[in-house]
Structure formats: C-alpha cells, structure tokens
C-alpha cells in the first residue's frame, strides 16, 4: 500500500468566522493551495461561548482543514500564531496518509 499513500500532516484550525477571509488569504500567501473549510461551527473556549446565534457572523467559528507536507507545517503555524493570539481559536496538527490519485 506504500506506493499509493503519501504521509502528510493534517492541520485543523478553528478561527473566528469574521476573520476567515483574511486567514485564508494569509494561508494562500504562505503557499497553501489546498484547504477545506466548514464555515459554520460553534464552540466554547477560554474566551467564552461562541454560539453562532447572532444575526451576523459575530460569535461564530469556522473550521479549516489542511493536508500538507511536513516541511510546510512550520510556515503555516508561524503565520497562524499571531492570529490565534489576537482572536483566539485553536490549531491542531496530526499525522495522516494521503491517498494518491
């Protein structure tokens, strides 16, 4: 199975929905060209509950999933850290295999 799968890193980001656009732009600047987004996600964290029930995108999160090479991880997390510091959120990195096609 080795030759049909490629080891990759799987980055999951939770970010304020209001900042999603600018966050994706930032990611694209660092060279990320593949990502998947779930726009409406709610949650709870250090900065309180984000229940997604306002009339606009305030108090709502978005979820970004990126599969990338191990070598790209640092660049991406470096770009994200200031954003997470400023707006809150979460970033998880884990291992996965990418099915070549």
């Amino acid at each position, binding site marked *: 199975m080795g030759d049909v799968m490629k080891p990759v890193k799987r980055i999951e980001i939770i970010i*304020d929905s*209001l*900042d999603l656009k600018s966050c994706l732009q930032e990611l694209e600047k660092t060279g990320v060209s593949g990502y998947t987004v779930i726009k*409406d996600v709610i949650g709870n964290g250090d900065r*309180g*509950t984000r*229940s*997604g*029930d*306002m*009339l*606009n*995108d*305030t*108090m709502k999160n978005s979820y970004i999933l990126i599969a990338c090479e191990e070598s790209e991880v640092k660049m991406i997390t470096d770009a994200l850290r*200031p954003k997470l510091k*400023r*707006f*809150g959120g979460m970033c998880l990195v884990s291992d996965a295999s990418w099915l070549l096609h």
Partner: protein
Amino acid sequence: MMQCIMNTELLLSNLLNPAVMFFFLGMLAVLARSDLEIPQSISKLMSLYLLLAIGFKGGVELGHSGITGDILVTLLAAVLMSAIVPVYCFFILRKFISTHDGAAIAATYGSISAVTFITAVAFLEAMDIRSSGYMVAAMALMESPAIIVGLILYRMYSEKDENDVDSFSWSKLIREACFNGSVFLIVGSLIIGFLSTDKHAASMSVFTNDLFKGVLALFLLDMGLIAGRRLGALTDAGFKLIAFSVLVPLINAVIAIFISNMLDLSIGDALLFTVLCASASYIAVPAAMRLSIPQANASLYVTMSLAVTFPFNIIIGLPLYLATIQWVML
C-alpha cells in the same frame, strides 16, 4: 398628570402591539427552556427583507418629498450625534472598566439599531403618525461614524503595546465600516426606491408594505429568542453596566428631543431621530469591534445592547419618547 395617563395608555397600547408581544414570546420561550428555534439563515432573510423594505419605502417617500436644505441639516445632526455620543460614553465608562471594553461599548451606543428603528416606524404607522423617508438615510449615516470614533478613542487612550500597529489599517477599517452589509443594503434600497417610478413602486408594494408588519412580528419573535439567550450573561455585566444600558439611552433621548425641537422636526421624525440616538448597535458594531479591538469582551457589549437596551427601547422607550415629544412640542 394627564401626561402621565397618556403615557400609560401609550405604553399599554404598545405592549399589545403583536410585534412587541412576539418579542416577549421569544424571551419567554428561552426562560421556559422551550426548544423553539429559528435557523440563522431565516434570521438573515428577515433582516435582509426588513432593511430592503424600509430602505425602498424611504426612498420612494424621499422621491416624493424631494431633498431640501432642512433634510441635509437633519442628516448632519444625525452624523454628529453618532460621533459625539461615543466620546461622552467613553469617558463615563473609563471610570469603571478597561479602555478596550470602554471603547467598544462607547461605539456600540453611538451607533444605531436598525430593528429598533423599524419597530418605531411600525409603531408610528399603527398610530397614524406620519414620518419622512429621509430618516432612513439618517439611520444609514449613523451606523458607521461611531465605529471610527470608538477606535480613535481606543488608539488614543490605550497603552502602546496593546495596539499591535502592524496589522491595523485605517483605510480598511473605514471601508469596512462604511460598506458593511446592512449600511450598503439600506442605502442601496433607498436610492433604488428614490429612482423608481410610481408604477414600479406600486408593483413592489405588497412585498415592501403589506408584508412588513407580519415579517416584523416573526422577526421580533426571533429577536426575543436571541435576546433571551443573552439574559444569562447579564450577571457578568454587573449592575453598573446594566444601569448604563438604560440611562445612556435616556440621556441620548433627551438630547435628541432637544435637537429635534431646535430643528423643528415633525412629531414622527422627532421620534425616529430620538430612537436612533437612544438605540445601540448589535450587528455592525460588534462585528467591527471584534476585529479591531479583539481584547474587548464581546459578550459585554452584545449583551448590554441586545438584552437590555433593545427591549427597553421597544417596550418602554417608544411610548415614553413619543409622549415626551408630544408634550415638548405642544
């Protein structure tokens, strides 16, 4: 004394307005822990509809009345109020809360609540009191200045390192404040209504006029649910901020009634102007503050404006302001 009676009567008649009762129903649903829920996309549809309808109707009326010097003076007064209110609020707030929370709350109270305005328009219609289309323009103009003033205050009074100057751009902020979705839709619909012929306007009128009160009722049910869910957070706000959320609208209302009188506005227009000054934002400003002053506690300013000031204005404020205006203008 007679004034007081009239006031109570007005208050009661406002309480029996279906739209206001639906607001109560929504709050009650939260308190009774009912599972009544309105999907967010439906809230958005209703607010889009209400903004479009109010803008279009205002534009059509403006097309009939024309744009006069008096109108421009009123609009100027509106913009000034939206810019000045945050300043005095900020200096009050600094006495007991942090600079960032103070700036965000100040901006919130300088800006306006479109739903309060729309409820006031329906309130006037129910009492057969006329108001002018250009007040919609006043509403649109009052949304953004407060955001910019709030941020200037924040930048002036917060400590340097808090500012993280790099990621901040005034031009982007101003663009976002002025082109935010609701301002854009109101102004756009106003212009479209203004440019429309009577025939076209008539063909839209079942949609923009006849449906209005019903959609507003359903929307206020939703607002009741949303505001009700915030009631729990009131304990975090504390007594001082809750008092602020009632007193500042009252002060702003007094100033607004004074100005209305100076400008010689009609009773209906005076009420709308007063309601704009007395209302606080919970859509445009929170979004802008969350991005530009992320240190501020969003739960604070959203809760104050949504769970205190909004209900206060539509339940007690409307009849109270109207009675005062009628009394002053006699």
